[in-house]
Protein backbone atom coordinates (compact mmCIF):
# COMPACT_ATOMS: atom_id res chain seq x y z
CA UNK A 1 0.00 0.00 0.00
CA UNK A 2 2.86 2.29 0.84
CA UNK A 3 4.42 1.75 -2.60
CA UNK A 4 1.20 2.73 -4.33
CA UNK A 5 1.13 5.93 -2.34
CA UNK A 6 4.67 6.82 -3.46
CA UNK A 7 4.08 6.13 -7.13
CA UNK A 8 0.89 8.17 -7.15
CA UNK A 9 2.79 11.40 -6.48
CA UNK A 10 5.13 11.28 -9.51
CA UNK A 11 2.26 10.33 -11.82
CA UNK A 12 0.26 13.30 -10.58
CA UNK A 13 3.31 15.48 -10.98
CA UNK A 14 3.91 14.30 -14.53
CA UNK A 15 0.23 14.79 -15.34
CA UNK A 16 0.48 18.33 -14.03
CA UNK A 17 3.57 19.02 -16.12
CA UNK A 18 1.94 17.56 -19.23
CA UNK A 19 -1.25 19.53 -18.65
CA UNK A 20 0.66 22.76 -18.13
CA UNK A 21 2.64 22.14 -21.29
CA UNK A 22 -0.49 21.39 -23.29
CA UNK A 23 -2.25 24.55 -22.21
CA UNK A 24 0.90 26.58 -22.69
CA UNK A 25 -0.14 28.58 -25.71
CA UNK A 26 2.72 31.02 -25.43
CA UNK A 27 5.59 28.61 -25.85
CA UNK A 28 6.91 30.53 -28.84
CA UNK A 29 9.35 33.35 -28.39
CA UNK A 30 9.50 35.35 -31.59
CA UNK A 31 12.12 38.05 -31.97
CA UNK A 32 12.06 40.43 -34.91
CA UNK A 33 14.66 42.86 -36.21
CA UNK A 34 14.53 45.59 -38.82
CA UNK A 35 15.30 45.12 -42.50
CA UNK A 36 18.84 44.62 -43.74
CA UNK A 37 20.01 45.79 -47.16
CA UNK A 38 17.94 45.11 -50.24
CA UNK A 39 19.24 44.45 -53.75
CA UNK A 40 19.45 46.81 -55.60
CA UNK A 41 20.92 48.78 -52.72
CA UNK A 42 19.63 52.22 -51.75
CA UNK A 43 23.26 53.36 -51.31
CA UNK A 44 22.76 54.40 -47.70
CA UNK A 45 25.13 53.10 -45.06
CA UNK A 46 26.91 49.77 -44.77
CA UNK A 47 25.57 46.91 -46.91
CA UNK A 48 24.25 44.23 -44.54
CA UNK A 49 23.09 40.79 -45.63
CA UNK A 50 22.73 37.28 -44.27
CA UNK A 51 23.73 35.88 -47.66
CA UNK A 52 26.11 36.54 -50.52
CA UNK A 53 26.81 40.05 -51.79
CA UNK A 54 25.79 41.13 -55.31
CA UNK A 55 29.30 42.47 -56.11
CA UNK A 56 32.95 41.41 -55.93
CA UNK A 57 34.66 42.00 -52.63
CA UNK A 58 37.71 41.44 -50.51
CA UNK A 59 37.42 40.19 -46.96
CA UNK A 60 38.78 42.44 -44.26
CA UNK A 61 38.00 40.21 -41.31
CA UNK A 62 35.36 38.69 -39.16
CA UNK A 63 33.51 40.27 -36.32
CA UNK A 64 31.47 38.88 -33.46
CA UNK A 65 29.36 40.99 -31.16
CA UNK A 66 27.61 39.84 -28.02
CA UNK A 67 24.98 42.25 -26.80
CA UNK A 68 24.04 42.07 -23.14
CA UNK A 69 20.83 43.24 -21.58
CA UNK A 70 18.50 42.59 -18.68
CA UNK A 71 14.81 41.76 -18.80
CA UNK A 72 13.03 43.32 -15.84
CA UNK A 73 9.89 41.72 -14.42
CA UNK A 74 9.08 40.24 -17.82
CA UNK A 75 7.79 43.64 -18.91
CA UNK A 76 10.73 45.64 -20.19
CA UNK A 77 14.33 45.24 -21.29
CA UNK A 78 17.34 47.45 -20.80
CA UNK A 79 20.74 47.11 -22.45
CA UNK A 80 21.82 45.99 -25.89
CA UNK A 81 20.27 42.55 -26.19
CA UNK A 82 18.12 43.43 -29.19
CA UNK A 83 18.68 42.15 -32.70
CA UNK A 84 18.01 45.52 -34.27
CA UNK A 85 20.54 47.51 -32.29
CA UNK A 86 23.19 44.82 -32.44
CA UNK A 87 23.03 44.16 -36.19
CA UNK A 88 22.14 47.53 -37.66
CA UNK A 89 23.88 49.55 -34.97
CA UNK A 90 26.95 47.99 -33.38
CA UNK A 91 27.84 45.60 -36.21
CA UNK A 92 27.62 48.32 -38.87
CA UNK A 93 29.67 50.72 -36.72
CA UNK A 94 32.41 48.14 -36.16
CA UNK A 95 32.53 47.34 -39.87
CA UNK A 96 32.97 51.02 -40.69
CA UNK A 97 35.79 51.27 -38.15
CA UNK A 98 37.54 48.37 -39.91
CA UNK A 99 37.21 50.21 -43.22
CA UNK A 100 34.52 47.91 -44.54
CA UNK A 101 31.64 48.85 -46.78
CA UNK A 102 29.58 45.79 -46.04
CA UNK A 103 28.97 42.86 -43.70
CA UNK A 104 27.94 39.61 -45.34
CA UNK A 105 26.99 36.13 -44.12
CA UNK A 106 25.54 37.60 -40.96
CA UNK A 107 24.42 35.03 -38.42
CA UNK A 108 22.55 35.95 -35.29
CA UNK A 109 21.09 34.29 -32.24
CA UNK A 110 19.02 35.61 -29.41
CA UNK A 111 20.36 33.15 -26.88
CA UNK A 112 17.60 33.16 -24.29
CA UNK A 113 14.45 34.88 -25.48
CA UNK A 114 11.49 34.84 -23.10
CA UNK A 115 8.20 33.48 -24.32
CA UNK A 116 4.88 34.90 -23.12
CA UNK A 117 4.50 32.27 -20.39
CA UNK A 118 7.90 33.09 -18.92
CA UNK A 119 7.21 36.82 -19.08
CA UNK A 120 3.90 36.34 -17.31
CA UNK A 121 5.53 34.22 -14.63
CA UNK A 122 8.25 36.84 -14.03
CA UNK A 123 5.66 39.60 -13.84
CA UNK A 124 3.58 37.59 -11.38
CA UNK A 125 6.58 36.80 -9.17
CA UNK A 126 7.65 40.45 -9.24
CA UNK A 127 4.36 41.99 -8.23
CA UNK A 128 2.83 39.42 -5.91
CA UNK A 129 2.87 40.05 -2.19
CA UNK A 130 6.35 39.51 -0.68
CA UNK A 131 7.71 39.01 -4.18
CA UNK A 132 10.91 40.54 -5.52
CA UNK A 133 11.54 42.10 -8.91
CA UNK A 134 12.60 39.31 -11.25
CA UNK A 135 15.49 40.04 -13.60
CA UNK A 136 16.92 37.84 -16.31
CA UNK A 137 20.18 38.26 -18.19
CA UNK A 138 19.69 38.46 -21.95
CA UNK A 139 22.30 37.86 -24.65
CA UNK A 140 22.31 38.37 -28.40
CA UNK A 141 25.24 37.11 -30.47
CA UNK A 142 25.88 38.34 -34.00
CA UNK A 143 28.72 37.31 -36.31
CA UNK A 144 29.56 38.51 -39.79
CA UNK A 145 32.24 38.84 -42.45
CA UNK A 146 33.40 42.40 -42.95
CA UNK A 147 34.12 43.14 -46.60
CA UNK A 148 35.11 45.96 -48.88
CA UNK A 149 33.46 45.92 -52.28
CA UNK A 150 35.81 46.11 -55.26
CA UNK A 151 33.06 46.50 -57.84
CA UNK A 152 30.07 48.80 -57.48
CA UNK A 153 26.91 47.46 -55.96
CA UNK A 154 23.74 47.55 -58.04
CA UNK A 155 22.15 50.78 -56.96
CA UNK A 156 18.45 51.42 -56.75
CA UNK A 157 17.39 54.05 -59.26
CA UNK A 158 15.54 56.83 -57.47
CA UNK A 159 12.00 57.44 -58.56
CA UNK A 160 11.27 60.81 -60.16
CA UNK A 161 10.15 63.27 -57.53
CA UNK A 162 6.40 63.59 -57.34
CA UNK A 163 4.79 66.97 -57.56
CA UNK A 164 2.27 67.98 -54.90
CA UNK A 165 -1.35 67.79 -56.08
CA UNK A 166 -1.76 71.58 -56.03
CA UNK A 167 1.18 72.05 -58.36
CA UNK A 168 0.12 69.15 -60.54
CA UNK A 169 -3.24 70.74 -61.31
CA UNK A 170 -3.39 72.21 -64.79
CA UNK A 171 -3.14 75.98 -65.02
CA UNK A 172 -6.35 77.86 -65.66
CA UNK A 173 -7.08 77.98 -69.33
CA UNK A 174 -7.40 81.47 -70.73
CA UNK A 175 -10.61 82.14 -72.58
CA UNK A 176 -10.13 81.35 -76.19
CA UNK A 177 -9.89 84.35 -78.42
CA UNK A 178 -11.60 84.13 -81.72
CA UNK A 179 -9.19 83.32 -84.45
CA UNK A 180 -6.35 82.07 -82.16
CA UNK A 181 -5.26 78.47 -82.77
CA UNK A 182 -6.20 76.17 -79.95
CA UNK A 183 -3.37 74.04 -78.57
CA UNK A 184 -3.47 70.35 -79.36
CA UNK A 185 -4.79 68.04 -76.63
CA UNK A 186 -2.19 66.51 -74.35
CA UNK A 187 0.48 69.20 -74.57
CA UNK A 188 1.68 71.15 -71.57
CA UNK A 189 1.36 74.90 -71.62
CA UNK A 190 4.33 76.87 -70.29
Amino acid at each position, binding site marked *: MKTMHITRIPVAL*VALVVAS*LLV*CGGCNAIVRGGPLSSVPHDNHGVFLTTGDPPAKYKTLGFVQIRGYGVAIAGLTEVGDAQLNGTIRGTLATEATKMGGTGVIHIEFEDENPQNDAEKAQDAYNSFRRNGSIQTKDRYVTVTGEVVQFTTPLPIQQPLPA*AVPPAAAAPPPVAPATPGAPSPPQGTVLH
Partner: protein
Amino acid sequence: MRPLRFLPLLALLSLGGCTSVQYVEFPKRTAPGTIFFTAEAVKPPYESVGVIQLTRKGARVFGFADPVGTDLETAMKELTPQIQTSGADGVANVRMHSTPITLGDEILGAIFFFAPIGTQVTITGELVRLGPPRQQVQVVPQ
Protein backbone atom coordinates in the same frame (compact mmCIF):
# COMPACT_ATOMS: atom_id res chain seq x y z
CA MET B 1 25.91 -10.64 -9.78
CA ARG B 2 24.61 -7.19 -8.92
CA PRO B 3 26.20 -5.34 -11.90
CA LEU B 4 24.64 -7.85 -14.27
CA ARG B 5 21.24 -6.47 -13.30
CA PHE B 6 21.95 -3.41 -15.44
CA LEU B 7 23.23 -5.42 -18.37
CA PRO B 8 19.90 -5.49 -20.29
CA LEU B 9 19.58 -1.74 -19.85
CA LEU B 10 23.10 -1.16 -21.16
CA ALA B 11 22.43 -3.47 -24.09
CA LEU B 12 19.22 -1.60 -24.88
CA LEU B 13 20.97 1.77 -24.73
CA SER B 14 23.80 0.56 -26.94
CA LEU B 15 21.28 -0.68 -29.50
CA GLY B 16 19.72 2.75 -29.49
CA GLY B 17 22.79 4.33 -30.94
CA CYS B 18 24.06 7.83 -30.49
CA THR B 19 22.71 9.50 -33.60
CA SER B 20 19.62 11.65 -33.70
CA VAL B 21 18.09 12.45 -37.07
CA GLN B 22 15.45 15.05 -37.80
CA TYR B 23 14.13 15.64 -41.26
CA VAL B 24 12.07 18.54 -42.49
CA GLU B 25 11.13 19.52 -46.01
CA PHE B 26 11.36 23.20 -46.91
CA PRO B 27 8.28 24.50 -48.69
CA LYS B 28 9.13 25.87 -52.12
CA ARG B 29 7.56 28.83 -53.84
CA THR B 30 5.13 27.20 -56.24
CA ALA B 31 2.93 30.21 -56.91
CA PRO B 32 2.71 33.86 -55.88
CA GLY B 33 1.43 34.07 -52.34
CA THR B 34 3.00 30.83 -51.16
CA ILE B 35 5.65 31.04 -48.46
CA PHE B 36 9.09 29.58 -49.11
CA PHE B 37 12.04 28.64 -46.89
CA THR B 38 15.58 28.36 -48.18
CA ALA B 39 18.94 27.88 -46.53
CA GLU B 40 20.57 29.88 -49.32
CA ALA B 41 20.42 33.47 -50.48
CA VAL B 42 17.75 34.49 -52.95
CA LYS B 43 18.53 35.87 -56.38
CA PRO B 44 18.24 39.64 -56.73
CA PRO B 45 16.24 41.74 -56.97
CA TYR B 46 14.75 41.34 -53.53
CA GLU B 47 13.76 43.50 -50.61
CA SER B 48 14.81 42.71 -47.07
CA VAL B 49 11.84 42.93 -44.73
CA GLY B 50 13.71 42.10 -41.52
CA VAL B 51 15.34 39.35 -39.53
CA ILE B 52 13.38 36.88 -37.44
CA GLN B 53 14.03 34.24 -34.84
CA LEU B 54 11.56 31.74 -33.43
CA THR B 55 12.43 29.82 -30.28
CA ARG B 56 10.07 27.14 -29.03
CA LYS B 57 10.64 25.52 -25.66
CA GLY B 58 9.06 22.35 -24.36
CA ALA B 59 9.79 18.96 -22.85
CA ARG B 60 9.87 15.29 -23.75
CA VAL B 61 7.55 13.43 -21.41
CA PHE B 62 7.95 9.67 -20.84
CA GLY B 63 10.89 9.85 -23.22
CA PHE B 64 8.85 9.95 -26.43
CA ALA B 65 5.89 12.32 -26.05
CA ASP B 66 6.47 15.88 -27.23
CA PRO B 67 3.22 17.65 -26.22
CA VAL B 68 4.39 21.15 -27.09
CA GLY B 69 6.01 20.22 -30.39
CA THR B 70 9.64 21.21 -30.38
CA ASP B 71 10.50 19.62 -33.71
CA LEU B 72 11.63 21.49 -36.80
CA GLU B 73 8.39 21.01 -38.72
CA THR B 74 6.18 22.44 -35.96
CA ALA B 75 8.50 25.40 -35.53
CA MET B 76 8.34 26.11 -39.26
CA LYS B 77 4.55 25.97 -39.19
CA GLU B 78 4.50 28.37 -36.24
CA LEU B 79 6.73 30.78 -38.15
CA THR B 80 4.55 30.88 -41.26
CA PRO B 81 1.86 33.29 -39.92
CA GLN B 82 4.61 35.69 -38.82
CA ILE B 83 6.01 35.69 -42.35
CA GLN B 84 2.60 36.38 -43.85
CA THR B 85 1.84 39.26 -41.50
CA SER B 86 5.23 40.85 -42.15
CA GLY B 87 4.49 41.09 -45.88
CA ALA B 88 7.43 38.87 -46.85
CA ASP B 89 7.35 36.15 -49.48
CA GLY B 90 9.62 33.83 -47.53
CA VAL B 91 12.71 33.33 -45.42
CA ALA B 92 16.22 33.19 -46.86
CA ASN B 93 19.40 31.90 -45.23
CA VAL B 94 17.45 29.81 -42.75
CA ARG B 95 19.41 28.31 -39.87
CA MET B 96 17.84 25.68 -37.61
CA HIS B 97 18.82 24.10 -34.35
CA SER B 98 16.90 21.72 -32.15
CA THR B 99 17.72 19.63 -29.09
CA PRO B 100 18.81 16.21 -30.36
CA ILE B 101 16.99 13.31 -28.72
CA THR B 102 18.52 9.91 -29.40
CA LEU B 103 16.81 6.57 -28.88
CA GLY B 104 18.95 6.19 -25.78
CA ASP B 105 17.53 9.42 -24.41
CA GLU B 106 14.01 8.18 -25.10
CA ILE B 107 14.68 4.92 -23.26
CA LEU B 108 16.15 6.77 -20.29
CA GLY B 109 13.25 9.21 -20.41
CA ALA B 110 10.79 6.33 -20.28
CA ILE B 111 12.58 4.77 -17.29
CA PHE B 112 12.93 8.07 -15.42
CA PHE B 113 9.48 9.22 -16.51
CA PHE B 114 9.12 11.64 -13.62
CA ALA B 115 11.89 13.85 -15.03
CA PRO B 116 10.89 15.30 -18.44
CA ILE B 117 13.74 16.19 -20.79
CA GLY B 118 13.87 19.86 -21.70
CA THR B 119 13.85 20.51 -25.44
CA GLN B 120 14.15 23.57 -27.60
CA VAL B 121 14.04 24.44 -31.29
CA THR B 122 15.34 27.66 -32.84
CA ILE B 123 14.92 28.96 -36.39
CA THR B 124 16.58 32.12 -37.64
CA GLY B 125 16.46 33.74 -41.06
CA GLU B 126 16.01 36.88 -43.11
CA LEU B 127 12.53 37.81 -44.28
CA VAL B 128 12.57 38.77 -47.95
CA ARG B 129 10.09 40.01 -50.49
CA LEU B 130 10.92 39.00 -54.05
CA GLY B 131 11.10 41.68 -56.70
CA PRO B 132 12.61 45.16 -56.79
CA PRO B 133 12.57 47.05 -53.50
CA ARG B 134 9.64 49.37 -52.99
CA GLN B 135 10.66 53.00 -52.93
CA GLN B 136 9.12 55.86 -51.09
CA VAL B 137 8.06 58.66 -53.39
CA GLN B 138 9.56 61.95 -52.31
CA VAL B 139 7.25 64.91 -52.59
CA VAL B 140 9.05 68.09 -53.60
CA PRO B 141 7.77 71.03 -51.58
CA GLN B 142 6.72 74.11 -53.49
